[in-house]
């Protein structure tokens, strides 16, 4: 009974957090892209456009769900459902932090741990292709069909280097469970260099990290691999015909996939919740220091405002950041917040990289995309796997 109650509470917390992240990720993306392109971005709804996601949600929910007359109805309605549900499932096995104690109950900051966790993620993400392929086909529209076909071909092709890039750090970790993968990356070499897969082991996994991230961009259909929805040639690709909540489902699926792939990158290569440097060097005090610094910066800008409304909004944000920083110093919540901070910081950095690259790179041509996957990424991942395997075998006890 206790188990069910704890699980339900955890599911509620993770779901609420995940949905908020998905909604605000879109705001962050629009803001970052805007600043990359020297624009302002959304700034009308709420201070700094912070209520923009809420406005978007209300808009999407209240819009008319239009069903074109020429579509295959059943598959047309099924496709967004498959896409979004497959995108949301993977979060259930992501470990956000270490074991914690809340009100006397000991539990992990993870919904569930599977002993084939990483394979589960691969399986679910490979099923996500159906959503896009079916959407493209059932729309009965040549642009949608082309978008759907492109997307499925791209996802199948890039799944190979992705899986091979995953295999190499798994050889070092020696387990498929996400929790144990993170645990195997604990500890430090020379007292300061973390034993994350990118740094340590018999063969530092820098190459497979890069291959994984590139293939991850392609798997999530992000720039520079966003050919399925290349708007200058395919209108909007596979979701051309969709409107209202069905369109929102695809949108949400894309962001959820992005979060999943960054979480998996963090767990496999960047040591999950393990801090960047040991607690003996004060890694527990970095989060509050960082938050205090951001608070001070906001306060300074609020006292010397560039725009009139900054005088009110920035000091309020500064207080929020100060309070968060103080929260990190409370001994009762510190063991919960610090690992989560490290996990969130790494995921946040990777998400920012995703957005940053979207603001920087142009789109691939389709034949370039395919030959890049098969002629460069796949052999590179294979060679990396061979070297890693050889070195792991040689150094094994």
């Amino acid at each position, binding site marked *: 009974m206790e188990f069910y109650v704890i699980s339900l509470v955890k599911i509620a917390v993770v779901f609420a957090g995940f949905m908020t992240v998905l909604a605000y990720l879109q705001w962050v993306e629009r803001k970052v892209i805007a600043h990359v392109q020297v624009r302002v971005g959304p700034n009308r709804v709420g201070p700094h456009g912070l209520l923009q996601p809420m406005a978007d949600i209300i808009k999407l929910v209240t819009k008319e769900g239009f069903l074109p007359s020429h579509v*295959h109805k059943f*598959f047309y309605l099924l496709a967004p459902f498959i896409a979004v549900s497959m995108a949301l499932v993977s979060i259930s096995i992501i470990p956000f932090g270490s074991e914690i104690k809340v009100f006397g109950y000991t539990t992990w900051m993870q919904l569930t741990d*599977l*002993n*084939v966790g990483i*394979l*589960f993620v*691969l*399986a679910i993400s*490979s*099923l996500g*292709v*159906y959503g896009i*392929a*079916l959407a*493209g*086909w059932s729309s009965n529209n040549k642009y949608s*069909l082309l978008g*759907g*076909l492109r997307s*499925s*071909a791209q996802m*199948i092709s890039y*799944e190979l280097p992705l899986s091979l890039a995953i295999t190499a750090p798994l050889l070092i970790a020696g387990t*498929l469970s996400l929790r144990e993968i993170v645990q195997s990356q604990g500890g430090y070499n020379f007292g300061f260099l973390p034993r994350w897969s990118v740094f340590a082991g018999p063969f530092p996994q820098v190459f497979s990290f890069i291959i994984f991230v590139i293939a991850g961009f392609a798997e999530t259909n992000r720039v520079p691999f966003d050919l399925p929805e290349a708007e200058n040639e395919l209108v909007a690709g596979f979701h051309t015909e969709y409107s209202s909540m069905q369109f929102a489902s695809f949108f949400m699926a894309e962001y959820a996939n992005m979060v999943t792939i960054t979480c998996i990158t963090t767990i496999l290569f960047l040591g999950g919740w393990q801090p960047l440097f040991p607690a003996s060097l004060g890694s527990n005090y970095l989060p509050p220091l960082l938050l205090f610094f951001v608070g001070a910066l906001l306060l300074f800008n609020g006292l010397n405002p560039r725009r009139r409304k900054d005088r009110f909004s920035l000091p309020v944000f500064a207080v929020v950041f100060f309070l968060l920083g103080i929260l990190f110093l409370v001994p009762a919540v510190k063991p919960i917040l610090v690992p989560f901070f490290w996990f969130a910081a790494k995921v946040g950095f990777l998400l920012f990289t995703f957005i940053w690259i979207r603001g920087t790179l142009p789109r691939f041509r389709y034949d370039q995309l395919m030959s890049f996957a098969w002629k460069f990424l796949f052999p590179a991942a294979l060679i990396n796997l061979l070297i890693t395997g050889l070195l792991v075998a040689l150094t094994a006890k």
Partner: protein
Amino acid sequence: MDLFFFVVFAVVAIGGGVSVVLQTHPISSALSLVAVMGSLAVLYLLLGAEFIAMAQVIVYAGAIMVLFLFVIMLLNSGGETKPGRSAMVKVLGVPVLAGFVAIIAYVFSLSFNDTLAVHFGGFSDGSARSIGRAIFGAYLLPFEVTSVLILVAILGAVVLARKELD
């Protein structure tokens, strides 16, 4: 709980299998087959073979069936128009099917007696580690021979596709 899931997914698997045959549109048939693969994966999971279950989803549902779907979409074939059934099918269909079911039931009843009942989660060697040990230990030769066989098939496909280009 185990029995509940077994019944649900066994029904889905059989229903999906029947649906593969009965559907007139190739896409519907292909998706029914995906449902069969998925429910088979759940049945493996119930038996305690986690690795096989995940491999089933990744390989069959995630890769092979996507390619099937892909080809069907590219060919853009429409729904099948029902052909008139021949007299032989009408007369012999049901008896032959019943005969086959009877033969299978007989073989099963001969080779598995009651002491060999299946237990949920009773299979303890389903982890990736034990599967790996089995493949690269006891079954190394069959494994390698199979991979050569697949390689031959791939080469054959490439050669055939090349001829068509010339």
